[in-house]
């Protein structure tokens, strides 16, 4: 199957012409409030973030670790809804000139209706989605709808993924591949080792798409390690942790140290 290059892939390739590694960050919409989410995104964009994952909160975030788990729960406790998440994401996508993606769990799409969820993503200017509990075998409707809307369905490679499966996932993805640096959930430490290097080379060999690497990426040293081995470094839990420990205003200087 000859796959079209999505807008997301093209913009990643264009950005990579100018930078040797891109930075993607992750926030949970509505945590601690929607106003704070907007402010954090504004600061992140100013600090030089290249693309962003916006997580629509879900009550059962099975693949997330303690930091993002708590952010999901707190956002919901404060009353965050899917409609509000869409409204906020639309505002962000209009205001800031970087690609935005949704990350959420499948039930959020399922309860909205998969096709209408995807069409709504398209209409507000989102460029792709990451749905960690939706393997391609269960997600044909989703893949078809994303393809029709020219949005990027992004799948995940893991250290347990056999090479044949990597190629299958890549065939079902556009935009980029999200490669998790280790087993486990988000927000725990990762050893940036030669073993990881071997695994990333294997990821690279099995997809023609740009490669993002996340899980445990949190320092300039980690990002340096990934330079030349990946196209995008993903910093997820750590920015949320910084915000919790030092307040919303601390996010911008933290990001600036990463992209320096």
């Amino acid at each position, binding site marked *: 199957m000859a796959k079209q290059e999505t807008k997301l892939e093209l913009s990643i390739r264009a950005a990579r012409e100018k930078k040797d590694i891109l930075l993607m960050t992750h926030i949970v919409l509505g945590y601690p409030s929607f106003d704070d989410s907007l402010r954090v995104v504004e600061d992140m964009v100013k600090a030089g973030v290249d693309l962003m994952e916006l997580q629509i909160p*879900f*009550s*059962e*975030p*099975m*693949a997330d*670790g303690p930091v993002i*788990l*708590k952010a999901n*729960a707190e956002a*919901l406790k404060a009353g965050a*809804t*899917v409609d509000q998440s869409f409204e906020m994401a639309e505002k962000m996508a209009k205001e800031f000139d970087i690609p935005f993606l949704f990350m959420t*769990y*499948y*039930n*959020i799409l*399922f*309860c*909205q209706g998969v096709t209408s969820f995807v069409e709504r993503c398209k209409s507000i200017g989102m460029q792709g989605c990451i749905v*960690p*509990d*939706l*393997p391609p*075998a*269960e997600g044909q409707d989703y893949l078809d709808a994303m393809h029709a809307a020219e949005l990027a369905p992004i*799948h*995940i*490679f*893991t250290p*347990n*993924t*056999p090479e044949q*499966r990597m190629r299958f*996932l890549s065939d079902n993805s556009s935009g980029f591949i999200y490669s*998790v640096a280790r*087993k*486990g*959930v988000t927000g725990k430490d990762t050893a940036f080792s030669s073993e990881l290097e071997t695994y990333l080379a294997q990821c690279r060999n099995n997809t023609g798409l740009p490669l993002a690497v996340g899980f445990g990426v949190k320092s300039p040293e980690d990002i340096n390690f990934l330079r030349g081995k990946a196209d995008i470094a993903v910093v997820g839990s750590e920015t949320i942790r910084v915000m919790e420990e030092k307040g919303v205003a601390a996010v911008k200087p933290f990001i600036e140290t990463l992209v320096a």
Partner: protein
Amino acid sequence: MKNSGYYSQFGGAFIPEILVPTFDELESAYLEARDDEAFWQEYLELMSTYSCRATPITLLDNLTEQLGGANIYVKREDLNHTGAHKANNVMGQGLLTKRMKKTRVIAETGAGQHGVATATMAAKFGFDCTIYMGAHDVQRQRPNVFWMEQMGATVVAVKEGSQTLKDAINEAFRDWVTNMDDTHYVLGTACGPHPFPEMVSWFQSIIGTEAREQMLERTGKLPSRVYACVGGGSNAMGIFSGFMDDNDVELVGVEAGGRGRGSGQHAARLAYDDASVGVAQGYKTFFLQDHDGQMQDTHSVSAGLDYVGVSPILSHLHETKQVRFEAATDDAVVEAMQRTVRYEGLIPALESSHAFAQAYKEAPMMSSDDNILINMSGRADKDIFTVADAVHDPKWKDFIIEKADAYRREMNNG
């Protein structure tokens, strides 16, 4: 990954990519075991020597006379080792864990019965064991926590979400995505991603196979109705499976009605109209969720039925009308339990008492030619604190106060 494990629109395997090879391995091991007659023989041998199989059926003659109508029989899963049907599934998965050469097991638990059963199996087979239990349930079910720890298991009190069964399942999955290489997740009910619903039902089918033979032998015919409580649905799947092809046997699943229809405080996914189809915890079924798909808080006097989802196989049987679903309220359940204790000397768990409550409601309207069968999925020793509160027993309260005072004196002197 095969796109299998569907029961009409329900089921599937909505799992994080990291677990895909683990589920492939599990499915292969399960299918091989199913094809291997020696595996089932080994399982039967284990259950008859380590647990108490075949468990008997008991006629409740006093209550049959008192209620008038159908003759009430009970399948005695309370006589399993550890006091509940949970042992059937756990010992089966323990044998499978050995086949897969894994050395550690993890499990979620609500009422604590599945946790105790898993800890028992781990102690017997020499596995390391970690049990995830909602902090709220740890409070409710201290006696079970005590036994799990005595058996060498680590019990983790889960403080996320509603602090009940679904949160314990999420935490167990979080452990598994890190430790899948040496760890098997012993899921306790007929829910979760494929192959768990089918595999757990297979191990529990030992209940229904025995019960059908026993009823025929004892009464010369099949029962008119079979009652089972439904949390995740494993004991119901177990007993129903014996009668699935018998068109004249009506199967009745009884959910936790909590404070009743319309109260918003219950765990009735199929009997009431509050649930809708969704995907969470790796499978598609009816969930108690809001419009956005966020899971809602549930309530039941019994920790083991207090769950947002239900077996995808039971959702399917609900839609095809092969099983009728009812709900019993907390009050009716406590009453049914007290009645069973007082007049028959049996002590059904609060979970199982849901099935008794519905059976007692229907028996008087049936004929004395009818036999009905209740699955007594477990015994209530673990519920002693909850039941003592529900019946406001003053002597129990005095005992606890005295015991606490004695501990306090001991600590102060120590």
